[in-house]
């Protein structure tokens, strides 16, 4: 795609860059020749994609499998109200084209996996990780280390944000900071814990800033530093990060040299694993409902999740309120508990069993695995 020159339209469009000595014509041509991969076009990916497109990054790759939901619009500014129900890739591509038709958008539809990650990332100069789960965070990190691609990292939760640059030159990687993921269920996702809508704007644009600097080769990046942002108290702090010589992926004696099963690494249940005792498949619950069996179905997700999609027979008791609601549940009946993916409901089942409820089943895979 490189032409080695800028058109008149581009000279006009990027004029405020061209007069910056740190960018100039040479830098703008570098941006035009650059390829950046955005993993996720959600809260972080939205501002990243918009500003990188506006800045004139020549090729932007987008990885996403999701569709636009109205609950996304509070922060995912690349998508609009008329995009609800569309693929995020379609919506994001349209927004980028409208902003800067000079940008080539490469679509990678689906999830990033251990099978496709190296092949996808190999084509890019820089990766910006804006995913929402630990398995993909570790996958992106390991693939970037193995391929020697810098990763502009950002992560958000409620009012807190983190940003850094991993796998760049001799700097540390994500595993140097967090050798192991937290056990599933201990750290809630944004869907469970909430997130301030403007927060991903701040963190996503810190990532975008780092991407542009990495591409231009100017300034000092966040390599070796972890930036912490507390939006509620409006404080930025900076911590030192060091490469861990014992890091299994980037250390001196590397034990992870090819991509692994990240779901398993993060302790997630395998979707094709056999049922454990105390579990039930969604289709079996459907059959019980169809038969008119006498049992209690409980949804332990949050009210907004229940509102977005629910099984009509399910009673909503968010996990946090379950201890206070125990007296309202008929312990003589079979109790079937579900959540989004089976983690929170597993905790609920443990609690119910501890409190003496004798007949409790957890819906394997949660409502995500439920076909009605």
């Amino acid at each position, binding site marked *: 795609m490189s032409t080695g020159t800028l058109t008149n339209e581009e000279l006009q469009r990027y004029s405020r860059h061209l007069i910056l000595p740190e960018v100039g014509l040479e830098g703008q041509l570098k941006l035009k020749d650059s390829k950046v991969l955005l993993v*996720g076009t959600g809260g972080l990916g939205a501002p990243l994609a918009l500003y990188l497109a506006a800045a004139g990054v020549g090729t932007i790759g987008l990885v996403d499998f999701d569709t636009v939901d109205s609950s*996304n619009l509070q922060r995912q500014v690349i998508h609009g109200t008329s995009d609800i129900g569309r693929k995020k890739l379609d919506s994001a591509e349209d927004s980028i084209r409208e902003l800067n038709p000079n940008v080539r958008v490469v679509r990678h539809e689906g999830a990033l996996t251990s099978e496709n990650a190296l092949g996808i990332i190999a084509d890019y100069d820089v990766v910006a990780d804006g*995913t929402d789960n630990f398995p993909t965070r570790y996958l992106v990190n390991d693939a970037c280390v193995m391929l020697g691609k810098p990763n502009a990292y950002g992560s958000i939760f409620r009012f807190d944000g983190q940003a850094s640059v991993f796998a760049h030159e001799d700097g540390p990687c994500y595993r140097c900071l*967090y050798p192991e993921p937290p056990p599933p269920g201990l750290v809630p*996702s944004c869907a469970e814990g909430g997130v301030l809508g403007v927060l991903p704007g701040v963190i996503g644009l810190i990532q975008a800033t780092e991407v542009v600097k990495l591409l231009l080769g100017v300034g000092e990046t966040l390599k070796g530093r972890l930036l912490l942002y507390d939006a509620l108290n409006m404080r930025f702090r900076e911590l030192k990060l*060091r490469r861990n010589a014992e890091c299994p992926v980037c250390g001196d004696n590397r034990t992870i040299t090819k991509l692994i099963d990240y779901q398993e690494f993060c302790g997630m249940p395998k979707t094709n694993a056999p049922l454990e005792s105390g579990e039930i498949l969604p289709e079996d619950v459907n059959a019980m409902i169809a038969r008119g069996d006498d049992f209690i179905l409980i949804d332990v997700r949050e009210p907004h999740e229940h509102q977005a999609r629910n099984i009509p027979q399910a009673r909503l008791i968010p996990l946090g309120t379950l201890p206070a609601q125990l007296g309202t549940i008929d312990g003589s009946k079979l109790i079937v508990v579900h959540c989004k993916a089976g983690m929170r409901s597993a905790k609920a089942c443990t609690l119910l069993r501890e409190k003496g409820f004798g007949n409790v089943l957890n819906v394997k895979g949660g409502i995500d695995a439920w076909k009605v």
Partner: protein
Amino acid sequence: MPKILIPSPLRKFTGNAAEVAVAGATVGEALKNLAEMHPELRTQIFTDEGKIRSFVNVYHNDEDIRFLDKEATAAADGDVVTLVPSIAGGAR
């Protein structure tokens, strides 16, 4: 007394306090005292064997205690101990 900064995911265990001043001559002592003041925090920070959990990073001022004297890192008056838990949010 050193000051411990509590990240927002853990503030529900400290009555929403973002900063807690605790006694302790080392980072480890300060954290143990914090866990005594707020018992629900104990399982978030420590394993059953009393070790700091591997996915919770502890900083003394701006340095990771893994690269200092770990839990024996001296903590003086006014020093800042920061808990940096893993967060993964971004897309959904």
